[in-house]
């Protein structure tokens, strides 16, 4: 490339077919111990329910499986390899001690229905994590049951809905800023609320005037992300809360961006009634290629009766247990007690940090975002000059003149050894470049990122085609997503059939 990068190069990389293409009858990666009870006659036991054939399931050996997945893994980018500046995703370091403690025998391999009296260890973890998250958010109570952020949103809105019902005046709609993440409106729809868009003002914050105008007795709640998806802190936050509360509405906060606030300010203190957290963002549990996550929902007292059941309680004898008799509960949102393994990791993260570490973490996250903003301001268009917290959003306005869009720049970043930033939203910024470095990036790594972005901007001027054709250094070039959607091939089929 014209502008050589100090960050990456290319290296020989193994090809690998689909596992089915390696299968051959008689190969096996399994062996069962001898049966210590009598064999049984399957057909006698199962009759017509007996399965005879497992179709095209593969038959391969252990070494082939190790190589298959090891080779596949080398085709991925990962936090462990470098900066992963996806805005709103908070791709921070995933500590290895979290993985180690999550695998401790008595935590990894115990059944959710074993008697509470022999489950005090796990329950103690739920309790301690709950207390930590309650103090971090400044709320009064919490449920750890939701499996992810969106699931937490649903749980939160269900409580809002139950609350208004209990008040005897159910409401119809949820206000959602146009800068919101897609799960917010999708969630509102799932719990049968109408979605009403709320527009942002010129500084990228909630338009107070519009809010006052749109707020009425039909509005169940406002779903606000704070800092919002522009990385901007809603400075009028308390005014917003007042407007809602004045008309009996509730303030829901999408806590996806808590990485900008932990230890510095608490949503509970600025008027939030209900919020979710993403343990897989703020609290360092790994994204694992898309999940699992965990989306605890923290609430104010007024919503406590509506918590999903069961609720963790300390019993009269001082031991911990679950309370199932919760007449006003919205009910269960999933089986068992939530993604326990993520609770272990999140608590380990909190313990490794302590109060000082958490505060420093937040400060570094905000420092990093501002450093990148400073480094790229001028090179890329900054649609909102409002102060930046944990992430900064540029637009491709300048590059678009040359026909280069945010996705092209993103793909080009790959050649420079980085994972792209977020391009999908916020919708209020056409051609958005949404960049969140998190606290886990060193100055060295960020300087390389800034260099890369500047170098790409220069390429856009000198030879845009190089950028439009990117990536050039990957084992596959840009993939045809349109074709994939037009004639979906969603599974492998044997050539013969």
């Amino acid at each position, binding site marked *: 490339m014209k502008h050589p990068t100090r960050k990456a190069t290319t290296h020989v990389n193994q090809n*690998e077919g689909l*596992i*089915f293409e390696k299968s051959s009858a008689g190969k096996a*990666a399994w062996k069962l111990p001898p049966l210590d009870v*009598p064999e049984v006659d399957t057909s006698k036991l199962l009759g017509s*329910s007996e399965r005879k054939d*497992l179709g*095209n*399931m593969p*038959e*391969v050996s252990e070494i082939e499986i*190790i190589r*298959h*997945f090891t*080779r*596949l893994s*080398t085709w991925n980018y*990962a936090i462990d390899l470098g900066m992963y500046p996806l805005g709103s995703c908070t*791709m921070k370091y995933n500590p290895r*001690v979290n993985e180690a403690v999550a*695998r*401790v025998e008595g935590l990894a391999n115990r*059944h959710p229905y*074993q008697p509470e009296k022999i*489950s005090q260890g*796990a329950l103690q*973890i739920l309790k301690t994590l709950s207390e930590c998250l309650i103090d971090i958010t400044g709320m009064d109570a919490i449920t750890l049951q939701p*499996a992810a952020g969106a699931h937490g949103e649903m749980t939160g809105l269900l409580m809002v809905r139950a609350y208004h019902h209990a008040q005897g005046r159910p409401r119809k709609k949820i206000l959602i800023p146009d800068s919101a993440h*897609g799960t917010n409106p*999708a969630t509102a729809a*799932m719990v*049968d609320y109408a979605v009403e868009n709320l527009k942002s003002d010129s500084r990228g914050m909630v338009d107070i005037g519009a809010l006052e105008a749109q707020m009425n007795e039909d509005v169940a709640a406002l779903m606000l992300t704070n800092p919002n998806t522009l990385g901007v*802190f809603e400075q009028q936050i308390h005014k917003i809360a007042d407007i809602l509360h004045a008309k009996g509405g509730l303030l829901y906060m999408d806590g996806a961006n808590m990485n900008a606030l932990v230890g*510095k300010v608490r949503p509970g203190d600025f008027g939030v009634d209900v919020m979710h957290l993403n343990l897989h963002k703020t609290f360092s549990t790994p994204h694992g290629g*898309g999940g*699992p996550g965990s989306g605890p929902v923290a609430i104010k007292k007024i919503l406590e009766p509506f918590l999903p059941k069961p609720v963790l309680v300390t019993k009269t004898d001082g031991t911990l247990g679950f309370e199932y008799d919760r007449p006003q509960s919205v*009910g*269960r949102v*999933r*089986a*068992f007690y939530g993604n326990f393994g993520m609770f*272990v990791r999140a608590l380990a993260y909190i*313990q*490794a940090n*302590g*109060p*000082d570490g958490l*505060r420093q*973490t937040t400060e*570094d996250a905000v*420092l990093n975002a501002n*450093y990148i903003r*400073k480094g790229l301001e001028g090179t890329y268009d900054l649609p909102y000059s409002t*102060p930046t917290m944990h992430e900064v959003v540029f637009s491709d306005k300048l590059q678009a003149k040359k026909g280069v869009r945010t996705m092209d720049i993103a793909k080009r970043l*790959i050649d420079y050894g980085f994972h792209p930033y977020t391009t999908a939203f916020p919708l209020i910024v056409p051609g958005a470049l949404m960049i969140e470095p998190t606290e886990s990036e060193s*100055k060295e790594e960020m300087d390389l990122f800034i260099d890369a972005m500047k170098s790409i901007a220069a390429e856009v001027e000198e030879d845009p085609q190089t950028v439009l054709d990117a990536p050039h250094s990957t084992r*596959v070039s840009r993939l*045809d997503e349109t074709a994939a959607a037009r004639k*979906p091939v*969603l599974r492998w089929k044997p050539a013969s059939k």
Partner: protein
Amino acid sequence: MRYLPKSPADREAMLKAIGMRTVDELFAPIPAEYRLSRDLQVPHQMAESEIVDYFRQRSRENGEGYASLLGAGAYSHYRPVIIDSLISRGEFLTAYTPYQAEISQGTLQSIFEFQTMICELTGMEVANASMYDGSTAAAEAVMMTVRLSGRRSVIVAQSLHPEYREVLATYATHQGMPLSVAGFGEDGRVNLKEMERSITPETACVLIQSPNFFGTIEDVAAIAEIVHKHGAMLVVSIAEAVSLGIVEPPREADVIAMEAQSFGVPLGFGGPYCGVIATREKFVRQMPGRLVGQTVDKQGKRGFVLTLATREQHIRREKATSNICTNQALVALMVNIFMTVYGKVGLKELAKQNLAKTAYAAAQFAKHGKVLFAASPRFNEFVVETKEDPLAINNRLLGHKIVGGLPLKKFYPELGNAALWCCTELTTRSAIDTAVALVAGADGSEPLTKEEPTVEEVAR
């Protein structure tokens, strides 16, 4: 803080570059009155060794070393070592959702293989990349049929996992969808007549589980016939994935909602697990969750991408098929590796061992308690009714470091002193014999002698 890659000098230099003097300036946008002036009330910063000790201690307080005969939606199967070796690779563990296909082919191809194997095992045509768990997958599958059928009421089998029923209720009632329950008969399976009676022209679907909560295998064909006759759809939930190795899958279903935890996912006190939805090609555009599809790059090279995103929240927002975003990808990878290890032959043999252990155990329990629904085919669970309260029996077992079956009173008061027991390939004969002896011991009959029963006895 040891995770933070900055020295004081770095921070200085960066602040300088930004043109600020203090870190506080960075937080100026936050109204002063809300800024936290105190330390958070969380544990003090701990050394790694202290953290490890803390969780080892919790582990010791959590039934470490107890044998367990519990199933009921969470199953203890052997997890091949290579599962953790492979999912621990940073390239899988610390990657995000594979939106940027060119540097995510590893995750994408593995999901494509996962989708394929789920199809092979369930007999369906398409499967998604995962859902939160079996309970939410079931609820989302029902929502799917509501969208597909244009009808809004739902019938759910009482033999479906009670907590799955609760979750469905949570999802459905708040959307004003009428729910009715179809009970089970003497044989522990859905009461067909009762079910048929409750089907109305407004019935979007019937949701059943097979093997059901009692471990009994439902007559899916018969149920499907009735359901389809009335223009409704059939959703089948599968909670014990290993059953697919030896039990005919519910091919007559329109949608299958599965909990794949049995495939290499640790019990983990209830999660994270791995839900999946599989269905027919023609229904795919109403399917929730991510889907990976095959395509080609500019050179015509095979590659994989996330596809049909127009179903999803990040494109369709309030019109999406679901609000799900983050799923259970890494857990699905565990499942994928497990399915690959056992494969076509191993899964069947594994399932057979589960069957054998369970047949043996049921025969033993039958001597000292009543095994309910004994005539119906079952996989690896069975219900035993005892004179004595199962809670009392279980307390006795705990004394021997054995966790007994799940007392059903809580979910099925009508079943009285019944408990749900489970055996897998990991359940040892001696654990079974000890448990049986302890059950017997309290039923008046003399404790079992330790001598091995003959095959004839077992066959009975």
